[in-house]
């Protein structure tokens, strides 16, 4: 039956010359929420008669492809998935099309204000938020109970270390903590950025001098390396968000500090073996609450060179609308709804019921303040990243160095020294302080 429909459809296309139907090429990252978008997109295709070509890539590769294309104006993509780091920078360069005309029923006022602000350049929205996240602590309440532990309302990293020690049982492949180790400014440095912040550190001081070998960095990174070496899973150096999520879902981690957007999937009994055994708490703190949880928004944007802007806008309006949220809820389950973008999502009774984490997530996203990310004042915005073009290179190299320390190939001190030297050199080449 299916085959016959497919065959008929194919014949119909061949006869009517549907090849003329406008095609959109969308580049996106292989995270769960995007896979759902791809699954549901035929609804939009049916309604509009357009076709979508999906390019789904791993985060680092996606970023490289998309950046190369937009910077050279290659025009290979009609819609790009960009983060809150790229959006303001690229918007300022004039690379992204303003998205202030997505239709009357788009309801801009419903977007969470801090998210919309993070995706704007010169006061105009340049990327529509698809899902947004902060970071928090997920843990296994069954293991905590068994060990006689209770998670405080606001944990500290000191307490986490104590818990983790008691919760690790390597003989049963139960690891006290899972944290990102895969190098990349959007991977391990996302978590480590918040860790350094809460230890009182910063990327640059007010004169744009890199601070990577400063005391707070040493303390934070030593803490991380020691904790992961003793209580983390093997192979942590190649674990990014997706790998850790798989470990947590299969019950191998007792505590996982990562994106709030993971909640929908670890609470989903279809995907997670531990769905009914999880609880959560805010991201731990050390010296200061400033910048202890990150802010990130994956969003959809149109390159300004696009020749199919109208179609692209129609898709973006669909995929980031209130109706899309409801569609996901109905088709994939309410727990899988893309979080962190619209206030109305959090008012849906179905979502509140299915997602016990909803209020916490909303609160932590609203609480993040990329403009004031650290204990001491800094010349930049961005919590786990710095919104200057040079940051990608520096963040990548620092991430690599720290992963070498995590793998035990170099000491923390040597790694941070090498990272500091690289950053200092890059910044002086780039002509800072500006």
């Amino acid at each position, binding site marked *: 039956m299916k085959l016959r429909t497919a065959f008929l459809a194919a014949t119909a296309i061949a006869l009517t010359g549907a090849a003329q139907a406008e095609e959109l090429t969308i580049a996106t990252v292989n995270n769960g929420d995007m*896979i759902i978008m*791809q699954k549901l997109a035929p609804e939009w295709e049916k309604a509009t008669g357009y076709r979508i070509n*999906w390019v789904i890539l791993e985060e680092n590769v996606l970023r490289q492809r998309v950046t*190369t294309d937009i910077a050279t104006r290659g*025009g290979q993509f009609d819609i790009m998935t960009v983060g809150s780091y790229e959006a303001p920078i690229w918007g300022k360069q004039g690379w992204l099309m303003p998205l202030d005309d997505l239709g009357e029923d788009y309801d801009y006022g419903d977007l969470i204000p801090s998210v919309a602000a993070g995706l704007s350049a010169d006061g105009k929205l340049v990327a529509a938020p698809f899902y947004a996240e902060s970071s928090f602590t997920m843990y296994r309440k069954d293991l905590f109970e068994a060990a006689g532990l209770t998670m405080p309302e606001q944990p500290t990293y000191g307490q986490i270390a104590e818990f983790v020690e008691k919760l690790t049982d390597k003989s049963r492949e139960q690891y006290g903590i899972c944290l990102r180790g895969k190098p990349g400014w959007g991977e391990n440095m996302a978590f480590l950025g918040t860790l350094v912040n809460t230890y009182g550190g910063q990327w640059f001081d007010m004169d744009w001098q890199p601070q990577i070998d400063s005391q707070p960095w040493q303390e934070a990174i030593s803490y991380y390396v020691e904790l992961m070496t003793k209580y983390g899973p093997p192979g942590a150096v190649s674990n990014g968000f*997706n790998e850790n999520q798989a470990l947590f*879902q299969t019950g191998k981690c007792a505590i996982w500090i990562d994106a709030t957007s993971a909640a929908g999937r670890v609470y989903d009994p279809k995907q997670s073996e531990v769905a009914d055994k999880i609880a959560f708490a805010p991201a731990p703190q050390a010296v200061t609450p400033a910048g202890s949880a990150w802010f990130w928004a994956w969003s959809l944007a149109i390159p300004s060179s696009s020749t199919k802007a109208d179609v692209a806008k129609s898709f973006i309006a669909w995929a980031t609308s209130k109706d899309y949220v409801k569609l996901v809820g109905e088709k994939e389950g309410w727990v899988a709804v893309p979080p962190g973008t619209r206030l109305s999502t959090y008012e849906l009774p179905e979502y509140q019921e299915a997602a016990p984490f909803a209020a916490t997530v909303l609160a932590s996203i609203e609480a993040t303040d990329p403009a004031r990310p650290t204990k001491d004042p800094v010349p930049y915005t961005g919590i786990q990243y710095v919104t200057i073009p040079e940051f990608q290179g520096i963040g990548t190299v620092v991430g690599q160095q720290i992963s070498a320390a995590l793998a035990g190939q170099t000491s923390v001190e040597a790694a941070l020294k090498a990272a500091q030297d690289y950053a200092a050199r890059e910044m002086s080449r780039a002509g800072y302080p500006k």
Partner: protein
Amino acid sequence: MARKTSPTRQAVVTVAAWSIGFLIFLPILWTVILSFKSETDAIRTPLQVLSAPWTTASYAEVQGRSNYGAHFMNSVIISLGSTVLALLVAIPAAWAMAFQPGRRTKDLLMWMLSTKMMPAVGVLIPIYLMFRDFGLLDTRIGLTVVMTLINLPIVVWMLYTYFREIPSEILEAARMDGASLTKEIVHVLTPMAVPGIASTLLLNVILAWNEAFWTLQLTTSKAAPLTAFIASYSSPEGLFYAKLSAASTMAIAPILILGWFSQKQLVRGLTFGAVK
């Protein structure tokens, strides 16, 4: 083969060869096995994996998520097209080098080979800019041309070593008989050269099929071959072993089968003139 071998020795050789062959083949075999298991079974211990029920669910999911047929066709067109193009350019060159060698022929060959050592990443941005200006990004033609250029040195060299083994006396004899150049090529040279050309063709189809830098950088969707298809399964969220192995199996199966069937032809020309 005429040598007599003791039964014990033969038994030892048989066991050794089979176990080594099995070990070398194991990664591929294991991938195929995993592709027929469910995601949760695929991460268990090897024995548990083997006893777990079989399913084709992963293939269905991979097929539902990506358009395998289109990627497959792109791979076929690009690898075959670039090989044929390269042969067209290379056959005359190799013929001339083999039968009319000059003082610089060797140097020329080595220079050609050295162009293959150029790291592709180093010239990505220039190529990307040129492709953009000529409207070649994400087109099969663009990728075919690049593949042709990349494999041309190997094609020339393989053909050259093969042609050189054709005894030139035969050509001279044909010339004495008054054969024209076209006749010489069509009736004398071609039949002798066919095995060499066939094996060059095979090797280059394989190389082009498996090329994984330019195919990823210069295509997005319309011209994306199987290497791009596999890239989208490299680290998906959640459990992905079964899906990854299904996608891997689908990506390598066509060329593996082609390779097995044409083994003999392939090997015949693979000697690069090393066997006299």
